[in-house]
């Protein structure tokens, strides 16, 4: 079912590309600006380069990948139009649900879902979140689902906040940094994107080997690619969407996906993020 839909979309995208070119949006010399976040392996220049090349090929237009440190900056840039699209997290997507729309959701290990991991040092005896009381904890980003919301909402269920529960809370603004923080002993534990931890365990096994996962969350919606809802009809945004969805059909796209350890990008649905929405509700006390 999915593959059929993807094929149709690919066909549309393929036909649309010359069409949108003819519409003249390429007359503007400004490249399409696509924002990335530390949600994935942000330190790997090869990944960024491959993704940029694949998207540019798919869109038939030059594309600029913009890196921002925080989700807040990404959301702000999206909303004020300084970037045209972004790969963000389900949490900020839901925070700005009214203004944003999905371009696509990556498929990891066959599903558009991932988990949040609670990690500790390899030799740490802790086996549950409750064992980590009084220790230092590393979050990725206050707007990250896996790198903050999951643990914060788990604590909220017990009526606690991270600042109360942990002796010290630091934000590393990168899932890889959370792993480094725990592996290096800066913090006792960390909340990390399960997809990033798994990808790191093959890319940098020495780093992840110094940590271990003690808690895995339920499966939640994978960090999606989004654009402003009011710009979804713009040819460039449509071209971007079709390029994203067609990545798995081109050699360059497949190469980029392979580097990202992803299978494909599918259109996705809001229902994927219901789990995140539920945790947001817990955190806000609703």
């Amino acid at each position, binding site marked *: 079912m999915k593959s059929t839909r993807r094929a149709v979309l690919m066909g549309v995208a393929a036909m649309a590309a010359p069409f949108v070119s003819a519409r003249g949006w390429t007359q503007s010399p400004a490249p399409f600006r696509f924002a990335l976040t530390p949600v994935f392996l942000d330190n790997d220049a090869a990944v960024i380069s491959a993704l940029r090349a694949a998207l540019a090929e798919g869109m038939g237009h030059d594309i600029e990948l913009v890196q921002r440190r925080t989700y807040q900056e990404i959301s702000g840039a999206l909303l004020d139009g300084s970037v045209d699209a972004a790969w963000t997290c389900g949490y900020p997507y839901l925070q700005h649900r009214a203004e944003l729309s999905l371009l696509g959701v990556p498929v990891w290990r066959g599903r558009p879902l991932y988990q949040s991991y609670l990690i500790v040092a390899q030799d740490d005896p802790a086996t549950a979140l409750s064992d980590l009381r009084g220790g*230092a904890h590393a979050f990725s980003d206050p707007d990250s689902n896996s790198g903050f919301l999951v643990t914060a909402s788990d604590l909220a269920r017990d009526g606690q906040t991270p600042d109360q529960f942990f002796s010290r809370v630091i*934000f*590393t*603004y990168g899932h890889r940094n959370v792993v*480094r*923080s725990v592996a290096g*002993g800066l913090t006792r534990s960390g909340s990390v994107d399960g997809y990033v931890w798994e990808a790191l365990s093959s890319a940098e096994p020495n780093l992840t080997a110094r940590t271990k996962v003690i808690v895995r969350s339920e499966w939640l919606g994978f960090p999606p690619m989004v654009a402003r809802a009011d710009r979804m009809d713009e040819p460039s945004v449509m071209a971007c969407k079709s390029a994203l969805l067609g990545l798995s059909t081109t050699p360059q796209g497949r190469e980029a996906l392979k580097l990202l350890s992803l299978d494909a990008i599918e259109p996705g649905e809001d229902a994927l993020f219901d789990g995140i929405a539920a945790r947001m509700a817990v955190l806000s006390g609703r």
Partner: protein
Amino acid sequence: MRPLPRFRNLPVTLRVPLVTAGLMILLGFLASQSVLSALGKVQDARLSETAKLHVEGLSVALGPSVLRQDVWEVYDILDRARSTYDGQRLLLSIVADERGRILAATDPRRAPVGEAVAEFEVGAAPPDAVRMTGDPVLRVAAPLLFQGRQIGQIVTELDVTDLLAERRNVSMWLLFGNAAATALLAFGGWLAVARILRPVGALVSAMDDSKGAPRPIAETDIPRGDPGLSRLISTYNRMTTAVESRAEAERRLAERERFVSLGRLSSSLAHEVNNPLGGLLNAADTILSYSDRPEVVRQSAELMQRGLSHLRDVTRAILDENRLDRVGQTLRPEDLEDLKLLFEPEVASRAQKLHWNVRPGSTGMTGLPAAPVRQIVLNLLLNAGAAAGQHGQVGLDVTVGEGKLFVEVTDTGPGLGQADLDRLLASGPLPPGGGVGLRLVHDLVSRLDGEIHHERMKDRTHVRVVLPPKDGGHA
């Protein structure tokens, strides 16, 4: 102080290389010290440079994060700096805030966030002053400056194990290298010195083997390249030759003296026996002719008796006169004539000119014993003859004044050396070397209570011996 005399007893061919080796070791030690000192300075400078670069680089990078107290940022910068910098060198870097609380460290387990940094500052030096102390881990502490103001502190632990190992390696290499070089050079030095000193060794063995009769060193063994040694050996050779020719001369003199005595005995006999012999023969004829005349026979027999008695007296007198062993005899002019006879052949063999000036009868008054005076004069003459060399001049003046005998021997030789003068004039221990005759002269003159004067005038050597008269020794 025992080893020193022992060392002195070693052969010179061993002593010199030993001294060379000792100097080489000293030199090697000094060179090693200077190399190690230079290495130490280089290492200190390198260390200080590393520490300064590290601290300064961190200060620039960390400033804003420390101001914000951003633990992750500080850790991130430290962690990345560790891998960027000489990762082996920086063991631990700690950044603390203004209050001395640790913000982050490269090893948060050792230096946990929020702890006091003070315990890590123990024994820490500023980056400029960090020096190798022998400790494998050195601590450096520096203020963290940002925009001209101190906002915290950086403490770094530097691992200098590699520098220590380098130092140790250099020390070992220097030690072994110097030892090998010293051994090699000492061996080379021994070979060279042994080669250089071979003539000296030959000289020593020639003197040792001589057993009182020094033997000369072959011309081929004289090192012409070394003027000092060559002169030394030539001198030695001349000395041995002189000793030999002296012994030869003494042998010849003894022989001649026997012949001279024999000759004088023969002529005395001929003269003294011949005179009465005519009378005796006449008396015998008379007895034969007038055997029948008892008075004539008796008178002739008496005459013959007197004549024979005279002959007996003459024989006795001649025997007394010409006794070969003349010990106890007083000096007479004939003794000096004998010396002339003995010495002339020596003069002739060297084509020398002899000035013989013995005042007639001058010796009769002194009463001095003949043997020692003859020995004195003969030795002085032989020495003068040897000194004057080929075509030289030798002179003898013998005079008597105030009952004293003055003997003066002159020669045109190069003059007496200090060692010869010591032998002739002083009574101290005999200096090593030849010239025993001069010491004999000195001893004989002393025994006769005489004096010896030496003078060098107008290229001539004058040796003057004054001998006082002997009481009651009148001939």
